[in-house]
């Protein structure tokens, strides 16, 4: 990986819908070169996918999310891995991380409404073997996700002409 690859990654991270030609003109290389590099980055699993960021609430399909923290008894030989992998298979679990601190695993769980989220936790998560305690925090409002601010920022005013 070189500087041009890093440039391409940064460009795609912000907008993955740019054409190969547009990327090529920004990075000052041929379009075919860009294509090759993207292919290489994909097979090296540096690029793991192309997703679109959607504001589902605006789309009329609002969701509710909660952060669930779990105290877990680790397994001999496997630590937290097998429990974490098992929980990850649920579609409702959007993120799952092992953390330092009072709790061990932190999950982001999403559902259509609060009932769905709490039903999921009480039915599928809490009763699992090796889970000692759960703490549920419902997300009331999100201001920023994945580096994107969700509130309206006023465009700064600039003089149309200045020397």
């Amino acid at each position, binding site marked *: 990986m070189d500087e041009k690859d890093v440039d391409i990654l940064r460009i795609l991270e912000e907008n993955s819908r740019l054409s190969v030609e547009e990327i090529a*003109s920004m990075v000052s290389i041929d379009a075919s070169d860009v294509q090759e590099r993207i292919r290489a980055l994909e097979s090296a699993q540096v690029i793991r996918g192309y997703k679109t960021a959607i504001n589902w609430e605006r789309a009329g399909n609002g969701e509710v999310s909660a952060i669930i923290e779990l105290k877990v008894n680790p397994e001999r030989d496997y630590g937290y891995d097998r429990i974490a992998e098992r929980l990850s298979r649920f579609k409702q679990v959007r993120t799952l991380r092992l953390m330092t601190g009072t709790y061990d695993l932190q999950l982001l769980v999403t559902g259509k409404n609060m009932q769905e989220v709490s039903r999921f936790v009480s039915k599928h998560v809490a009763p699992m073997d090796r889970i000692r305690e759960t703490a549920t925090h419902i997300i009331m409002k999100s201001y920023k996700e994945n580096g994107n601010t969700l509130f309206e920022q006023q465009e700064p005013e*600039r003089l*149309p*002409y200045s*020397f």
Partner: protein
Amino acid sequence: MENVISLGVGEPDFRTPWNICESSIYSVEQGTTSYTPNRGLQPLRETLSGYLAQRYNLRYSANDEMIITTGVSEGLDIAIRAVVDPGDEVAIAQPGYVSYGPCVTLAGGKPVPVPCYEEDHFKLTPENLQEKISRKTKALIINFPNNPTGAVMTAADLKAIADIVTDRDLVLISDEVYAELTYEGAHCAAATIGSLRERTITLNGFSKAYAMTGWRIGYLCAPKELSDAALKIHQYVMLCAPVMGQVGALEAIRSAEDEKNDMVNEYRLRRNMFVAGLNRIGLICHVPEGAFYAFPSVKSTGLSDVEFAERLLKDQGVAVVPGSVFGPGGEDHLRCAYAVSRRELSEALGRMETFIQGL
């Protein structure tokens, strides 16, 4: 006019990084609202001195050779007034920033434009300079990376004109406000050329690098004798640069390096895309190595730069600045800023292409 895309701007389209704003706002809340020493806050000068040494190999003493000014604009004004006596001539490399000539005139001097041409990549050449120097020439003003051409002068380019500057005992006023916006290789500060150090007033600031145009913070660095002369004027007409701006500037050097690099990187990508686009639609454009302006030629269209700019604005709602506004060497060119979002640059290119096809 509605829906105009302005490429006529001269400042970044980014907001000042929040960490800079936050530290300044906090300092005001804490009551930091009074005058600073004339030369500027000591910690700022010291930190800046260290930064300039590490970044550009420029060594200036924080106590004797540096003044924090109210924008590079003020630095320019006091530098000129410190050096120019009524009747003195001042050679000014052109195309250049619109203020140099008027500031010389206001100081009672006579501005003498020295053209820089496209075939020389808009660099100042010793031949062109020699032609315009007379017995009365007191100083030379240069601005690299250049507004409007985006040209830069390497160490070799500067050495080539250094002999004339020293032979004629000129003061060199070097406006390096776009120094951080250098895309190919490192910026060469004029005062790092051995023979030029003792006679150069280096001007630079925070406006372009850190998107702090409205804060009005710049700095003037020069050997003690020149710096003292400028300080004399500064202390009477300005007293000190705004304190909240100085606090912001200090924070900028301390903690906004990443944000600055991100902005410079973004300018670079835009430059590549925009200049390639201009060449593609028939406006031949040399690759600007610094600043955030593209300076394409309109010769292929048969229109003058002023005509082109007027009609482009009327017909397609894209605003650019005709190059002749910036002095000799600028005719038949346009200054197009790429301190504008990629989306708008793309759209502007599309509209310009439509305009050219319709000619």
